[in-house]
């Protein structure tokens, strides 16, 4: 039975259902319950954005607050995963990866390879990304290209409540280290979500909208904007196909190339900064495997090569919007040699 719930609730529900299903699932992070050691309420926060709210009382002893020691507790989640647990650890904002990245890319990501296949590390690292909350340069970054670069990690970017639940369920059941990117401006977005548990497989893109004039590949928070752009384009007679890869690693290159075979035009929409980004990654796919299909220059729509500014007007210019996406699609369609 599907109901309308928020992206936040969808993630919470996925975690709760997996905790009920599998005692190996535990949750940890700064104030993931909240109130530890204090005189007031327990479960005072449920995470800074309330995503893990309520789990503390439902699953006694399985939701752990932590000190502000990301290397130690992200590493602890990884270590626990090698011993039969399935930890879901929160790296609050992905901007904070810089104090604990080693545990993620040198430890979790490499164990299996370094140890000759004799390691299984089913850890999920939840993290928030993206601009839009006027949170400025150190609390608004996207950074998923950095994780996508690393062999051994899987990288997930849900674009709706439905995807958030299904991908989180898959992430928890998955036997590899997964970094799960939640867009912080999407928590209140609502959508239809089945009540029962379900999984969405990794590496399978969703065609969010069909169209034969131009392919628009958009990631995470950019999917909604791409769809908005597609609506606008439709009114000027351009039918855009919007592809939501859902995971950047693995990446469903097949669906992208199939669409490209039909449209011959490609726009990639990526909230991250442009260099060595997902926009570049998909554009490179088109330039290589997709070259024979490509009939116009690939349009990359990304943030600029700058930190995220604070002031509202600047931040609004920073993040790709429907207008820029539509313009890029038009340029792709209008282009002729």
């Amino acid at each position: 039975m599907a109901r309308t719930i928020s992206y936040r609730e969808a993630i919470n529900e996925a975690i709760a259902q997996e905790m009920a299903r599998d005692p190996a699932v535990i949750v940890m992070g700064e104030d993931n319950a909240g109130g530890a050691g204090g005189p007031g309420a327990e479960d005072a926060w449920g995470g800074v954005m309330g995503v893990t709210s309520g789990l503390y009382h439902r699953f006694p002893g399985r939701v752990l607050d932590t000190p502000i020691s990301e290397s130690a507790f992200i590493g602890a989640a990884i270590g626990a995963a090698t011993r039969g647990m399935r930890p879901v650890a929160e790296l609050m904002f992905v901007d904070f990866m810089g104090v604990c990245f080693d545990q993620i890319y040198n430890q979790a990501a490499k164990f299996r390879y370094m140890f000759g296949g004799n390691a299984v590390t089913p850890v999920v690292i939840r993290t928030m990304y993206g601009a839009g909350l006027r949170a400025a340069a150190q609390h608004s970054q996207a950074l998923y290209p950095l994780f996508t670069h690393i062999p051994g990690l899987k990288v997930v970017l849900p674009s709706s409540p439905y995807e958030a639940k299904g991908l989180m369920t898959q992430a928890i059941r998955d036997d590899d280290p997964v970094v799960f990117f939640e867009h912080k401006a999407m928590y209140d977005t609502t959508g239809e979500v089945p009540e029962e548990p379900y999984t969405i497989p990794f590496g399978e893109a969703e065609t969010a909208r069909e169209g034969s004039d131009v392919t628009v590949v958009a990631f995470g928070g950019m999917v909604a904007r791409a769809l908005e752009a597609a609506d606008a384009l439709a009114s000027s007679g351009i039918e855009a196909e919007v592809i939501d890869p859902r995971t950047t690693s693995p990446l469903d290159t097949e669906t992208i190339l199939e669409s490209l075979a039909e449209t011959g035009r490609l726009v990639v929409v990526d909230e991250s900064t442009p260099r060595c980004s997902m926009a570049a990654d998909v554009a490179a796919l088109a330039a290589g495997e997709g070259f024979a299909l490509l009939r116009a220059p690939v349009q990359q729509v990304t943030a600029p090569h700058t930190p995220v500014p604070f002031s509202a007007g600047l931040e609004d210019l920073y993040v790709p919007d429907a207008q820029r996406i539509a313009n890029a699609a038009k340029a792709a369609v209008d282009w002729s040699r």
Partner: protein
Amino acid sequence: MTETIPTDASRGLDPDGLLRAYRTMRTIRDFEERVHDEFATGDIPGFVHLYAGEEASAAGVCQHLDERDTIASTHRGHGHCIAKGVDVTGMMAEIFGRATGVCKGKGGSMHIADLSRGMLGANGIVGGGPPLVCGTALAAKQQNTGGVAVAFFGDGASNQGTTLESMNLASVWNLPAIFVAENNGYAEATASTWSVAADNIADRAAGFGMPGVIVDGFDFFAVHEAAGEAVERARAGGGPTLIEMKLTRYFGHFEGDQQTYRGDEVRNARETLDCLTRFRRRVVETGELTAERLDAVDREVAALVGGSVERARAAPAPDGADLLTDVYVRYE
């Protein structure tokens, strides 16, 4: 061993010094209360963390500092900025995201900085400041300026590896650095009695080869005394000190925080421990300052802060072209 500074200690402040201290604390208090009110109107964007209640720490430490000296701050940075002399009008404009802000509206509350004042910035990263302070202390040492560098950080930040290793580095390099742990009892909603696995943060000093001091952070004079000793030692080449301030923040972790994790510490602190009330009572009792002079400061500060809001509200937003500037000194 850690030692506790008695609250009646003093360090021969003359009336001008006392007035300056009071003005600093009052400016911080007024500024923060005003930001609290303005935030409620919805016109201040982003995350804002207020320093009200902790004024004696910033003021008591920074009273010893001059233009040779540097400080690094935290997400809760307004108080440190004001105490280090950053322009209040520019700060308010920054918090409102205006082009006239000290950072042209590009940084906001969590990144207010003024390097020309030796203020290395609020910092959005918990534990981001202590390594930087090792660097500015090193620069002072290499350049022989006699300067010192102060890292302010919270109880939560005292568990961040970057903070801990910076203390060790400061000792190993014998730097003129001072580590000020502002233990306000909580990191977000987590009690420091839980997250700090020691009775006191200051107990960690011994493991990093420096003196550790515990101070009543509501008592300007205790802070001033402890910081004075640490600054003196640092300037004389005696190396770093860790000072733990015990205090309370008056507002939530950030604006909007419901604070259900707290008891009635704040009411208690406001009623019986408040740094401004205690400072005022003491200097009036000893006759060092009159209530009238202090009231005059209050009025001046109110006008300054009120004016800063008016000017911020009237100021222009940054120009769209500013999006792309200030990334590099030169890039081509």
